[in-house]
């Protein structure tokens, strides 16, 4: 099966510190993947590289059916290629309504002229309502995003991600600060999304990862330490030593 995203031999150094060390990792067109690892393992840097925020020193990042390299592209070009990103801290546009937030994210031409001439259409409104329904914000469309609860902001951001219709969703700690019920719902949203695209979840919380019930990649010191089912990686002695052991110590 051909891969959606192939990261191979990538190294990034910040002031002599190797944040990513010869990292190779692949993602299939439809899959749900969790990336775990201790602080400083390079999880966020990995996302920065894929989304174009950080340029690696060496290595390749190959995307899609046409096998194009993402390394020379800007953040906005990569986003238009179909890679969406959710930040660790919920980042929605707090001064604007939920509907405006979703409308901005909705997959449509992104050029200034097209945006200036943009007309509200029935089909766009229906898409926005459908997505709001998916993330449980149907009743909040006219509310200002800044008034939403923490969990609702997280969902709005996931909704914005869905509205972009990406082929790869990078989701950084979606369950942080959520109640158990909210977590359950978030799990459902992500599992549903992963049926038609690749969803990569970076997470600290083992309980949440267990709920996702998917393939897990453990990062340590900027490289892949282990990969497989959660039970497989948690029984790995090296993983226990460097990550779980420390976490439970």
């Amino acid at each position, binding site marked *: 099966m051909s891969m959606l995203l192939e990261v191979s031999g990538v190294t990034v150094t910040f002031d002599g510190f190797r944040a990513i060390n010869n990292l190779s990792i692949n993602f299939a067109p439809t899959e749900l993947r969790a990336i775990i690892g201790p602080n400083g393992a390079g999880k966020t840097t990995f996302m920065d590289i894929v989304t174009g925020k950080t340029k690696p020193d060496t290595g390749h990042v190959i995307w899609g059916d046409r096998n194009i390299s993402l390394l020379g592209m800007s*953040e906005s070009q990569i986003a238009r290629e179909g890679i969406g990103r959710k930040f660790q801290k919920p980042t929605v546009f707090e001064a604007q309504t939920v509907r405006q937030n979703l409308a901005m994210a909705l997959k449509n031409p992104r050029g200034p002229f097209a*945006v200036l001439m943009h007309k509200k259409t029935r089909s766009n409104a229906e898409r926005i309502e459908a997505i709001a329904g998916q993330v449980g914000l149907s009743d909040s469309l006219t509310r200002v995003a800044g008034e939403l609860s923490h969990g609702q902001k997280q969902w709005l951001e996931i909704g914005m991600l869905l509205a972009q219709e990406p082929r790869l969703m990078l989701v950084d700690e979606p369950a942080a600060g959520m109640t158990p019920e909210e977590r359950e719902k978030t799990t459902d949203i992500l599992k549903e999304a992963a049926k038609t695209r690749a969803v990569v979840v970076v997470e600290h919380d083992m309980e949440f990862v267990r709920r996702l019930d998917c393939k897990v990649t453990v990062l340590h010191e900027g490289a892949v330490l282990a990969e497989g089912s959660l039970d497989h990686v948690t029984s790995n002695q090296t993983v226990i030593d460097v990550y779980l052991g420390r976490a439970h110590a």
Partner: protein
Amino acid sequence: MRKSFLAENPSVLWFIAILAVFTLVVTLLSEVTGVGLISTSFVKTLGKTLCLCLVAIAMDVVWGYCGILSLGHFAFFGIGGYAIGMWLMYARTEGIVIESFAGQPIPPTPQEVSDAIGNQIFGVVGSSEFPLIWGFADSLFLQLLMVVLVPGLLALVFGWLAFRSRVTGVYLSILTQAMTLALALYLFQNDSGLRGNNGLSGLQNIPGFEDASQASISIVFFIASAVALAAGYVFFAWIVSGKMGSVIKGIRDNEARVRFLGYHVESYKLFVFTTTAVVAGIAGALYYPQAGIINPGEIAPIASIYLAVWVAIGGRGRLYGAVIGAAFVSLLSSWFTGGGAPDINLGFYVIQWTDWWLVLLGFSFVAVTLFFPKGIGGLFDLLVRKQS
């Protein structure tokens, strides 16, 4: 579903209505109708104030909506003034020169006419040659084009360089201050081709209307300024109300997030920076014929800072706030500095407002920033809340 943009933004209609009534009342009370309750010089002050309101809403769009604190937009205003001033001065001097040659038995050659005009205009800086930049000064149409093109191109090139390198925040503000300072210093030079620190003068005399009184000229410019302000207001309200407005405000609040949504942030910033610069140029072109004179001091860095102060006091992120701020502060400023405010005698010290006005303005700015971040325009929120 599809409501028109005006129906969704009732404040625009309110603004146009109030502006129309104001324009009508001032016109009726001016010397033109014979009522004369409003003097010609005050009509000019009001007309100039409308132009300042226009450049203030441009500033509000670039700063209040898009988050780019440009401290150089008054430079674009000045360039617009210089561009129209060149034609006004050339055409008027040409008329005078041709008239003075009229009595002579041998008609002057075109070279003699051109030399005489050059001598008249550039005599003060010890020159009579027309600099290259005056190449289009004989054509009103081309100079009007310059009013739009020169600020637009300068903003486009400057913005492209700055935004492409991702210069943001205070660094961008400093760069724009440097731009306006460099321009002012250049214009101060006698060999800049724009008469150095003398600037361009006599701009209140409109060529072709030598017989018209200043009273009627001032009313024409006053109405033209009101129309320009109304058009600019509708134009910017349209830009900031739709999806464009969403993206622009998004850039203000979280530039990186907008980028990860797939928008090319730099293009949007460039669009906003350039459009507002063009509108600033148009406002300047309407302002200086009413002021009568433009010199490089007008483009000094402090002018652009005042512009930001007006918008902050009036209320950022709402167009009528910028209008209120610009009108209120600039009229108050001319009242205080023009000797309108009575001096206060403290016995041991006399507070002369011509000197102390800036102190008062400075304190007001600090007070507004600290205690009323929404500015005067924020008072309208209280009104609306009381009604609902």
